[in-house]
Structures are given as C-alpha cells and as structure tokens.
C-alpha cells in the first residue's frame, strides 16, 4: 500500500537517523516508493488473470566525499533498514571516487500536483476491475470480435529526503486501460487506449468500442506498396515517435557530439530553428490533464519547460553535474512531455489529404541512428488509405524507417491534444513519411 505523507516522512527520517549513526560523516539521500497495484487481463471472452499486489522500494544512497553507492530493499523492519544502510556504507567505502558525484540538494520548493491523486482508487476492490473488464467483453461479444485487453490502477507514493534537509512527497493514482480487437477471420485488428488519474473518467466500454470499430473497418486490407506517403498519425502513433525526441534532449550527449542535437564542428543546436512555428514541445507536471511527479530522482524540482518553442530549440536537459560543468541551470528529466496541438479536428486533417495513409499506432520502435534520430518500427491495429480527402479503406501494415525530426519538419496540420501514457500529443498530418517495406501482420 502507498504510505501517506506522515508515514513516508517518518520512515525516511528514521533511515537518515540510522545513517547518521552507522555512517557518520556520510552524506545521505533516501527515497521510498510504496504502492498498491491491481490489474486484470482479459482475452478470448473472459478474464485470464488478475492480481492485487503491494510493493515497496526503499533506496539508500551514501557518500563519503566523492565515494558513493546506493542500495535498495523492500523490507522495512528495523533490522532490514539498518542492514541496507550498513551494506550501502560498505559499498560506498569500497567505491572509487566519482568526480561527477553531486552532493545532496537540501530543501526545495515544489509545485502542487494534487490532480495526480484520486482517493477513490485505493478503495476499489477486485469487483471494480472485473466489472470494467466485463463491460469491455460485452461490447466485443455484441460485435462478434475477440477482444484482448488490460486494466490497471495503481496508488503510488514517492518520498525523498536527504541529509541536507530535502523532503519531498508525491502521491498519484494512474489508471490505464488498453484493448485490442481482432475479427474472428483474422483479417481485422483495432486498438483503443485510455489513461487518466481519475477512476470516474474511465469508460472501458467506450474505449473498447473504438478498438472494435477499427477492427471491423480494417478487415480485408488491400495491398499498398511501400513508399513515401503523406500520413495522418493518430495520437498514439505520434506519442510513439515523439519519445525519441524526448530521449534526445540530453545536453551532455549533444555537447559530446553523439546525438542529433550535436552541431557539426562542436556545440549544440540550441537556438536553431528546426520546425515551423506550429511545433512546440514542452513539459509541465502541473497540467491537470496529465499530472506527473514535480521532482526527479534526486528531488530536483521539475519546472514547466519549453524544449522546442515555435519551431526553435529552446532548451536541452541538463543533469546537475553537467549543468554545473557548463554553467547552466539543471532541468532534471521530466516523466511527461507534450506536443502542443492545433485547432483542426482529425477529420479535417484527413480531408486535406489527396492521397495518403492514416495510421493508428506503431509497434516495436528501435533506434537506427541517433545522429539523424532515425528510428524503425511498424504500424499496427488499423492502417487506412486516404484518397481525395476521405478514408477509402484498410491497407496492409508497413515497416517505417523515419526520423521524428522529418515528421515534425513536414508537419502541416495538428489536431487537439490527447493523453497517451505520459505524453499529450495531437493527431498530426505530415508528408514524405518513409513506409519502407510491407508487413503481412494483421
């Protein structure tokens, strides 16, 4: 179960006190994640497995000068707590000096993230999950399709403290529902997903209906040759690709000349104009539509930051060490990112396409080349041909080899934002997207 703020703070202070006693002179950083997670999987007309588990991870970091180590345990009795401190002390003493070690942060101020927590969720029992799964299964039965899906809710507390006075606590209740519908003849497949921190906002039946409709519409796809196409990517597909942009924001890798944001001849692309004015990429833990932890693993506040501002590289991510070395302000690494949307509806995006492809989501994305940010992956669960501004029918799946940089450079239409996991992104229209080979998968 998730510890409340008082429990979390008390426990962390006890560990700090133990550290002060058994490792005098050491700087200490401690953290605890405590959670209850309940889930249900369903497929082939019924619930196939379900669980309700408690978990805890206590992390202790100790440093003697620049020699440091960290250990985790999930056992919270007094002896285990002492054992983990002692073990960390022994490891830290053995560790060689780390010139990049950063001392504890001390007290910080954090923005409120109250929208992340719904007290109703920790009160739910197994019947709540079973009922939601049943509503999904009923929708599938009515449509005579197979539906496989997953529903999870989690109540998680994260507390941090350090020997310089830092104290942080965050409580959240993320809920996730995804479903994949397949037609019995094996020729159609569709997907739907929903993420929220409020139980009442979840509508498993409605999200399943999206998947079911797509499966029915994607039956008996016709062959479409690989090539460069105008594409309309639905939000899930945009979120898949944008993850690689988020990963590439690390300033150090850019400064070291080994990522897309490295500039030929040295330096970074900070300040360069990469995209049109309509492309803005940012992070804000306080957005009620997608709240996330307002601090990072060390307790550094995660502030609202615009990484790409109207097409221009406005900020890169700096760790504390790299920021100190480069005389910059550390940003930490946020859990969530958003690509700002536009005013067009998804239907309007499609209506502007003479000939192109509508893509539901991607799968198995992997790096090909970090210098160009080129990524490979595949379409799945609903690919449709657009002709004359209208969706005219399903087509086969593709493997793509493409860069999110090209995607955003060529983007000329954005719909409104939708939450997909820890991203908020719009459906997007782009051009010259490299659908490199055909996949026979359905």
């Amino acid at each position, binding site marked *: 179960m998730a510890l409340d703020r008082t429990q979390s703070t008390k426990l962390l202070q006890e560990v700090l006190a133990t550290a002060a006693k058994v490792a005098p002179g050491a700087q200490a950083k401690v953290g605890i994640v405590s959670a209850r997670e309940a889930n249900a999987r369903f*497929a082939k007309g019924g619930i196939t497995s379900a669980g309700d588990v408690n978990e805890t991870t206590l992390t202790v970091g100790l440093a003697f000068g620049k020699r440091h180590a960290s250990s985790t345990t999930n056992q919270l009795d007094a002896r285990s707590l002492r054992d983990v401190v002692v073990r960390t002390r022994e490891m830290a003493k053995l560790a060689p000096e*780390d*010139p990049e070690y950063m001392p504890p942060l001390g007290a910080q101020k954090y923005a409120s993230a109250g929208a992340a927590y719904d007290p109703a969720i920790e009160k739910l029992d197994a019947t709540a999950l*079973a009922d939601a799964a049943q509503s999904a299964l009923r929708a599938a039965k009515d449509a005579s399709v197979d539906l496989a899906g*997953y529903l999870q809710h989690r109540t998680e507390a994260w507390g941090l403290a350090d020997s310089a006075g830092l104290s942080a606590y965050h409580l959240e209740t993320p809920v996730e529902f995804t479903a994949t519908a397949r037609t019995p003849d094996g020729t159609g497949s569709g997907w739907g997903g929903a993420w929220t921190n409020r139980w009442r906002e979840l509508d498993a039946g409605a999200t399943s209906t999206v998947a079911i409709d797509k499966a029915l519409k994607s039956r008996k796809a016709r062959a479409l040759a690989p090539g460069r196409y105008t594409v309309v990517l639905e939000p899930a597909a945009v979120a898949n690709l944008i993850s690689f942009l988020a990963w590439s924001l690390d300033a150090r890798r850019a400064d*070291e000349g080994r990522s897309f944001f*490295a500039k030929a001849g040295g330096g970074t692309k900070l300040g360069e104009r990469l995209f049109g004015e309509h492309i803005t990429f940012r992070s804000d833990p306080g957005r009620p539509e997608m709240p996330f932890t307002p601090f990072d693993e060390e307790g550094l506040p995660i502030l609202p930051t615009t990484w790409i501002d109207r097409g221009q590289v406005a900020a890169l991510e700096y760790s504390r060490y790299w920021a100190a070395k480069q005389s910059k302000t550390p940003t930490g690494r946020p859990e969530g990112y958003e690509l700002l949307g536009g005013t067009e509806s998804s239907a309007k995006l499609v209506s502007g396409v003479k000939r192109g492809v509508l893509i539901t989501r991607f799968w198995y994305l992997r790096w*090909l080349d970090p210098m160009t940010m080129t990524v490979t992956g595949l379409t799945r669960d609903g690919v449709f041909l657009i002709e004359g501004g209208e969706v005219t029918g399903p087509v086969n799946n593709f493997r793509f080899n493409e860069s999110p940089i090209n995607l955003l450079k060529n983007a000329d239409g954005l719909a409104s934002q939708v939450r997909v996991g820890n991203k908020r992104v719009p459906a997007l229209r782009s051009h010259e997207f490299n659908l490199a080979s055909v996949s026979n*998968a359905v």
Partner: protein
Amino acid sequence: MKLSRRRFIAGTSGALLLAAGRLSDARGLLTDPLLSSVIDTALGTAKRAGATYADVRMVRRRAEQISTREDHVEGVGASDSYGFGVRVIADGAWGFAASPTVNTNEAARVAALAVAVAKANARALAAPVKLAPAPAVVDVWQTALTKDPFRIPLEEKAAFLIAINAEALKVPGVKFCSSSIQSLGEWKLLTTSEGSSIEQNITRIAPAYTVTAVDAKGGDSVTRTHELPARQAGWEYVEQSSFFADARRMGEDAVEKLKAASVEPGKRTIILAPSNLWLTIHESIGHSTELDRMLGYEANMAGTSFATVEQLGKLRYGASLLTFYADKTTPGGLATCGYDDDGVKTQRWDLISKGVLTHVQTTREQAAWIGETASRGTCYGEDYKAFPFQRMPNVSLASGERDLTVEDLIAATDDGIYITGDGSWSIDHQRYNFQFGGQMFYEVKKGKIARPLRDVAYQANSLEFWGSCDLLGGPRAWELHGALYDGKGEPGQVNAVSHGCPPGRFTANVVNSRKS
C-alpha cells in the same frame, strides 16, 4: 532425510525430502524463522476460502551493478527484493495477490485476497482453468558456478572495467567508453497445495562495454559494443573470456566503422555470426512458438503469431537443414533451471524439426488447450509480485551436420555481407517482417573479407528468411548468446533467455539504416 548444506550448494537433485525438515536446514540464503508458517498459513487460508489449487512463491531477487565511463566509476548500486505471491484457482478462475511483508497475518490476508480476486473474475470467465497433471516434487536446484560474483570485491570489478576503458581509449579517434557488470541473484521457493516444494537459486552475470568514436568536425559518431553475452554463471565466466583482451580491438573497430563505406541497399547474401543470429532466433522462432501468443492471449501487448496450432506438423518454417529446439536445461542458459514456476521439471524438445513446425511452448494451464497431457515446463514469474505465466525457454538452432566454421562460410561466398554482434532489432506483432542491425559489417567478395561497411540493417519476412538458409556452421562454430530482459505480459515482466546457434548464410533485403 534432511538435506545437508553441502548438497544444497552442490545443487544436485535429492531423494524425496520432507518439506519441514528441508526448510529448517536448506534455506541458506534467508533466515526468516517464519517461513514455514507463512507458507502453511497461506495455503491453509486459500483452501478454507475455497481455492481448489494454490501455490506460494517466495522470491528473493538481488542485483549488484557497477558502471564506469572513461576513467571513473559512474555508479555502484545494489538492490534486494523479497516477498511472496499467492496464486490460486477458485471457482475455476485464477486469482493472485502478493506482498513484501512476510509474516503469518499478511499471509492470511494475501491468500484471502487472492481467492477474492479469483471469485470476482469467475463472473467473467470464458472457461474454467484446468491444470495438466504434474508429479509432486521436493527438490533443490542451483546454478553451477565456482566464483560467486557477489563475493568479488567492487574495487576489483571497478579496476577491471576502468582498465578496459583505458585500453579502448588508447585508440586514436575513440572518445568515450562505458562499461558495466551486473550480478543477479534469484532465489525462490515454490510450495504448492499438491505437495511440491522446490527451492532454486539462480545466479546470472552480465558484463558489457561500449566504445564510441566521434568525428567532431563532421558531426558524426558510431558505437561498438562487445559481444560477450550475459550468462548463468559466476565470475569465472568473465575471467575466462576475452572481454578484457578485446578492448583495444573494440576501439579499433569503432574507428574503422566510423570511416567505413555506407552500405548500398539491395537484396544480398548475408552471413550471420552467432552473436547476431541469436536475436533473430529469439524474435522470429522463440516468440512465434509461444502458445498463448499463437492463440490470441497476448494480442493486446506483444501481439499474436503467424504460426497457428493447425499448422503443427505441416508448416514449412525454414530450410530442411534447420532444427530449432527449446531447452531449459542448456548449461549456462539464462532460462535454465531445474523446475518451472508450475513445479514442472525442465526439459528439451524440438520446436521445428528439419524445417517443419512440430511443437510449441506450454504451461500446465495451456497443455490441454492443444490436447497435450503434460506441460513443457515454461511457466515463469519474474519476482514475488509477478503472476507466473508462459515464458520463453532457451531456444536454440542445432548446429549443421557439416563441420563448417564462419571462415568456411565466408570462403564459400562470392558476394555478400558478413555481420557480427547485435544492433537495432524490430519485428512486427505477428512476427512476419523483421529488421535487424549488428555491430560490425564486412563486404565479402570472392570468398574473402573485402572491406568494412556501416549503416547496415537486414530486413526480411521470417519464413522467407529461414527458407533462404543454404549454409550452416557445425558444432565447433556453435555459440550461446542471450538477453537478460525479454519483455512480455501485462503488467510487463522480464525473463532472461539464451539462444545458441552456429553461423548461417541467408538472403535478405539490406537497408541503409541512416539514409532512411
């Protein structure tokens, strides 16, 4: 008969042992005196609450990681998790609950919760769960090793890694080298309501380093990762390898790759080293022969499979020189153990015999789905809080009958590309279309290595690719590779798994991974 400490360490199978006696003597790694009462309480509570089957898995997972870059240590860390999970069948449905708080009160709460979850699920059940019979077993099993990696001092590991970095950095053009060693311990005690009590202790080790060469002027960089795979073994595995001795060559490889010609795409003959081919086996043979995936149970996450149950004994999967087998007993294999998490003794069997699909991977629940009377023993849950389900065993390609080495394959090739090591990998959700990279790429002309290449990836359809195999290395060229973190299921779980194979020659579409 009690189990002696010595026998536990040796890891040999004992005669039938009484659980109570064994527990008091054999649990060498945990000292919780409440262990037996926790298990008894959980099983008793589950039965009284209406469970027709129950098992308790107590799992302790340990990990130690040290990572370095260039001349210094980046991080030293250890993790330790312990707890128990109770899995039950009640009213025909699975229920599962778990906790890290190991005492009898919590055992009663968790067991009752598992039954409540099962009963809630029973309202939405397609068909009652039926387990294939398995004999009750009391036994212990342990990784064969001589040097426990957890007992090697961190200082020694740090010095070893930094020395590797220093060697690689001596090569002009090499700018960075990152290295790490992970030591992983998995101890588990499975007790079932059918009378099984199985204790296993598994140790894995994963050494790794990556060298980066940078052309700052041209704004370019490439990496070269050493190909030594993770293994179920002790520290002696690292000592006996060429991991350290290769450091300079890894640096030279990176610089060579940075300057190499970018590949011209097209249909090509490719020769794949075992260090590359294992991952292709994992993705296009291992995953597509998982029964739950074939039947649609994994459709929402990992997808389904092009291979179907109806095709067993009929589907020509590849050339007739190819036989793939599943084997959770392969020495050193990452998935190797004595018993699976259903308590079924591990075994070896063919999945594809002489190119034809013959068998699949099953658990006790799944055997009946295809009319089989016994499980193949592939059930696994990653830790105490993970619901055990079907996971991939070690899946390997048998060596060819001719005693060929990779040099023989190169000598027999007029025009092709030789690929070593694994790079980028991606495959569709029914396992048809894949695309794999590698570490090093060489153009082969008239039976000889002609020049290095870069930006190479090969793309193919699984059946066409395996059907194109026309040369296979022999027993001397067979190597065991593998991965620690194969993902499957919801919530996602990882599984460590090895794949052995000889080098092979194939035809595939070569694509340029940079010029998309």
